[in-house]
């Protein structure tokens, strides 16, 4: 055979329309809740309405005799089978305090929504009807709800722990040998430079994936099969087995089509464990699907931090030191990676800037709220928000443009690789190029001119311009680094490539897509590598039986880690095929070259396609002596470093000074995520990330009342933005390849969400700064903006009390956690 002229063009880099779409746009989908099995029973969960209470008694009699009910199960009934506690895989310190977290509460509840019993019935409706009949008596206790108060002692969330502080984690650049002493830098700047102190609030958010979580467990047969709407089928399999004392080999977990996650489905949930335990106990398939209200109430939340920041700089605006004191609200329990979320931000506060010194201290605090855990960006959006807000404050203090202050301090493109003050090595980047492109696309100078004109004219609608020049660490994660951070698992990923006799290719990946488009992107990669047509490649994922090894999808890791495993497996296939091709071509191995899907004897027309070789291997009639009759190959890839996407995001908002309404007028971003496999998918990821970040800035907040009840428990109250709330974005890219992986790719899943929040809030503050406002707490709702403007015009620096007016007037102490503050105090 000769190589045909119509060989596949290069797939990587092309805007392939997605393979996944065919089933998703026609309704031929396999969501977990679509699965129905013969004799399947349905679970409904009885949840505590109280945030902190002893469970005095549970009367199940009425529920048990309700129509269709097979069983009513309490925590005491399954205390042994459910195990002592749900897993937390990331104890960040040796002395971390953690309460036991049984899937179903046994004698006390620690947040509103915790499960105290479940009803098992023949239909979902019957289960829910009977759920209302379970009579639980609670002895209510005073809930601990304010993390700042909780951090200082007083009422305890968990009495037996003796403290509300789960752990204190510190990174100090001087101790780590990555920089100088931060206190020295701050004290020096106090003498002859600039010191700025601020306190920012990262409000509590809800991931709010569109598909509510659902779990189906089939205990019949030798292995128990669990389908679940999860991002992490492999982790779930291991953790569920360990938690319930089931042999790992007796459990199979399948993540079928999964409708979004954003970190929210990176969890081992009480509902999954309860469904598993109940199905095994009753010997019948069981299903539990949450309602949206349950999802908002008990699926883990994100963010919820108080960030106290001190930045020092020289008089000309060169940054010298950064001190971060963080309080992070864990909620009532430590979920799968809860304690590590703020720590993922620890390495990013210094961002793209050349600080000499840095210290990060985080205290993880328990309160009687739903637990927090990963949400898109996980620690890095919080860090980026803090530093990008602070850089704007520094620009104001020095009296230069916010882009200028950044340029004075960022790492120049010729300075890579760059060892940061937080102990990371950034491999590559070009902040100048991205910023220059963004500036041009945005028409920065024209907008600044318009802003000045409107400000001078005293327009009722003011224009604000916000900047965010972010970077992030993604591609989680080098296993050694995770080990050093005390994380329980590694950060590798696994793949295998199976060559079928027909010449088709099955690629098994440990990555577990839930909207990312892996089936398309992985096919593009393998098509180029093996020279087979895009459509001949099938991507298999999300089933621990077909994909036995994997660490799943989160932390923008799929392409940079999982994709590299796919490449390594494909390369092994080529290596295995080579001696067989040589045998078939009667040539020397060293005389062969592999290109466009075929081995060719150098300098001749003689060649064998990979598909032909696959069939020859299948028949195995004439293979060289000692050759295994298989081309299939496995590979496990462990990255040596993170990758560091970056970008420049520019936002223009219009703020109505009479109503406080904020309208995003223009949003332009230029991201550098290295080389790109599929620009269409990349652009989509950026769009979605931007909106989640903008939503944090302007719309979303999980709000609890004084009793610890979530009052944003439906989409009526939790404001996921609609199409009508948003503009179209201008997105573009620069491409500075990552140096650490075969494709030069970085990662894009979280970039938009990390970068956009500070760009928007910087723009809002910029629009009203001339009224003396330097902060508006997120979300910058019309009410909050209006309130800040009212207080500014009345000269009241501190509308909601903390800090006091006197504090605000002190040099270097105009921090606030309230709805607005003025900056007449300035910095010293």
């Amino acid at each position: 055979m000769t190589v045909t002229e119509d060989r596949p063009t290069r797939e990587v880099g092309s805007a392939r329309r997605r393979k996944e779409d065919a089933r998703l746009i026609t309704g031929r989908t396999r969501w977990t809740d679509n699965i129905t099995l013969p004799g399947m029973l349905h679970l409904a969960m009885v949840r505590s309405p109280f945030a902190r209470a002893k469970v005095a008694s549970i009367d199940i009699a009425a529920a048990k005799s309700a129509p269709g009910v097979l069983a009513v199960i309490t925590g005491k009934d399954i205390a042994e089978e459910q195990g002592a506690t749900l897993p937390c895989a990331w104890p960040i310190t040796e002395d971390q305090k953690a309460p036991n977290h049984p899937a179903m509460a046994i004698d006390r509840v620690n947040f509103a929504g915790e499960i105290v019993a479940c009803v098992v019935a023949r239909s979902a409706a019957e289960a829910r009807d009977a759920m209302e009949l379970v009579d639980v008596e609670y002895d209510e206790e005073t809930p601990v709800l304010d993390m700042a108060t909780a951090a200082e002692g007083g009422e305890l969330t968990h009495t037996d722990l003796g403290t509300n502080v789960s752990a204190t984690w510190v990174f100090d650049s001087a101790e780590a040998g990555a920089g100088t002493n931060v206190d020295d830098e701050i004290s020096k700047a106090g003498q002859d430079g600039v010191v700025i102190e601020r306190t920012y609030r990262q409000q509590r958010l809800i991931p709010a994936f569109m598909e509510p979580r659902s779990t189906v467990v089939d205990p019949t047969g030798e292995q128990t099969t669990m389908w679940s709407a999860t991002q992490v089928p492999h982790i779930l399999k291991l953790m569920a087995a360990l938690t319930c004392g089931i042999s790992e080999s007796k459990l199979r977990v399948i993540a079928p089509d999964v409708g979004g996650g954003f970190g929210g489905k990176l969890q081992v949930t009480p509902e999954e464990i309860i469904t598993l335990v109940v199905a095994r106990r009753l010997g019948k398939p069981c299903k539990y699907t949450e309602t949206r209200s349950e999802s908002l109430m008990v699926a883990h939340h994100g963010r919820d931090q108080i960030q106290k920041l001190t930045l020092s700089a020289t008089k000309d605006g060169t940054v010298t030191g950064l001190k971060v004191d963080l309080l992070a609200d864990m909620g009532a329990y430590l979920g799968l990676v809860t304690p590590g979320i703020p720590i993922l931000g620890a390495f990013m506060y210094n961002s793209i800037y050349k600080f000499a010194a840095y210290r990060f201290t985080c205290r993880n605090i328990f309160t009687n709220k739903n637990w927090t855990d990963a949400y898109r960006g996980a620690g890095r959006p919080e860090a980026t928000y803090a530093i990008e807000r602070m850089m704007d404050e520094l620009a104001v203090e020095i009296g230069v443009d916010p882009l200028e202050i950044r340029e004075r301090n960022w790492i120049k493109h010729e300075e890579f690789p760059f060892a940061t003050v937080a102990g990371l090595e950034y491999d590559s980047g070009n902040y100048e190029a991205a910023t220059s492109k963004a500036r041009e696309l945005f028409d920065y100078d024209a907008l600044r001119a318009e802003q000045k004109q409107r400000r001078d004219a005293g327009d009722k609608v003011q224009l604000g311009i916000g900047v965010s020049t972010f970077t992030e660490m993604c591609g989680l994660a080098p296993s050694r680094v995770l080990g050093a951070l005390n994380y329980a698992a590694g950060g590798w990923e696994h793949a295998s490539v199976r060559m079928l006799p027909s010449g088709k290719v099955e690629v098994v990946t440990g990555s577990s897509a839930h909207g990312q488009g892996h089936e398309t992107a992985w096919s593009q990669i393998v098509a180029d590598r093996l020279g087979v047509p895009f459509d001949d490649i099938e991507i298999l994922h999300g089933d621990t039986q077909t994909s036995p090894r994997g660490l799943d999808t989160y932390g923008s890791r799929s392409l940079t880690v999982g994709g590299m495993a796919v490449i390594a497996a494909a390369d092994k296939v080529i290596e295995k095929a080579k001696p067989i091709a040589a045998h078939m071509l009667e040539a020397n191995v060293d005389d062969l070259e592999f290109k466009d899907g075929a081995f060719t004897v150098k300098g001749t027309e003689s060649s064998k396609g990979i598909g032909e070789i696959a069939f020859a291997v299948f028949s195995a009639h004439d293979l060289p002596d000692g050759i295994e009759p298989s081309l299939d190959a496995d590979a496990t890839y462990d990255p040596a470093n993170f990758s560091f996407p970056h970008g420049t995001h520019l936002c223009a908002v219009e703020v109505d000074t009479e109503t406080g309404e904020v309208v995003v007028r223009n949003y332009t971003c230029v991201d550098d995520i290295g080389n790109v496999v599929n620009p269409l998918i990349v652009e989509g990821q950026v769009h979605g990330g931007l909106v989640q970040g903008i939503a944090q800035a302007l719309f979303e907040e999980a709000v609890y009342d004084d009793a610890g009840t979530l009052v944003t428990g439906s989409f009526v109250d939790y404001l996921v933005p609609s199409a009508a709330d948003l503009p179209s974005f201008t997105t573009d890219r620069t491409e500075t390849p990552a140096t650490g992986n075969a494709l030069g790719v970085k990662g894009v899943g979280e970039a938009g969400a990390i970068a956009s929040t500070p760009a928007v809030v910087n723009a809002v503050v910029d629009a009203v700064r001339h009224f003396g406002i330097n902060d508006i707490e997120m979300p910058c709702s019309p009410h909050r903006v209006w309130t800040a403007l009212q207080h500014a015009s009345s000269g009241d620096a501190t509308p909601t009390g903390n800090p006091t007016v006197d504090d605000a007037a002190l040099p270097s102490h105009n921090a606030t956690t309230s709805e607005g503050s003025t900056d007449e105090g300035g910095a010293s």
Partner: protein
Amino acid sequence: MVRINVNVDGVGYSDDVEPRTLLVQYLREQVGKTGTVVGCDTSNCGACTVHVDGSSVKSCTMLAVQADGHEVTTIEGLATNGELHPMQQAFHEQHALQCGYCTPGMIMQSISLLKENPSPDETEVREGLEGNLCRCTGYQNIVKAVLAASKAGA
């Protein structure tokens, strides 16, 4: 139980339903139209949008008994003879979906939108889709898809 006769995606069904059964539950659990999904409890998200007699309806806001004698079209009934509806094609071409969970409802609403206003501008598209939430795409490519479908005369 109440007997209802409903035409779903061109097929007549005669079923007994509990009077409290929502149309979306009937479609998913009795007719097997699992392409239509449930995303919330409060009629905010629009994931369950179908057409009843040609108009878009959030099928969680309607009882199955109210569909008695009516024609329901779901996402599964849009393609004819293996040929995608132009709106499905536009969603694919413009990369207007990621996880795909909101997609059935979004497509059904988009078709309805163009039926009412065949040549909307961007603002009209955004406002016309206000009742359908998407968490993945940021809506930009959904808006592009609807505008493209409008241009193609869908």
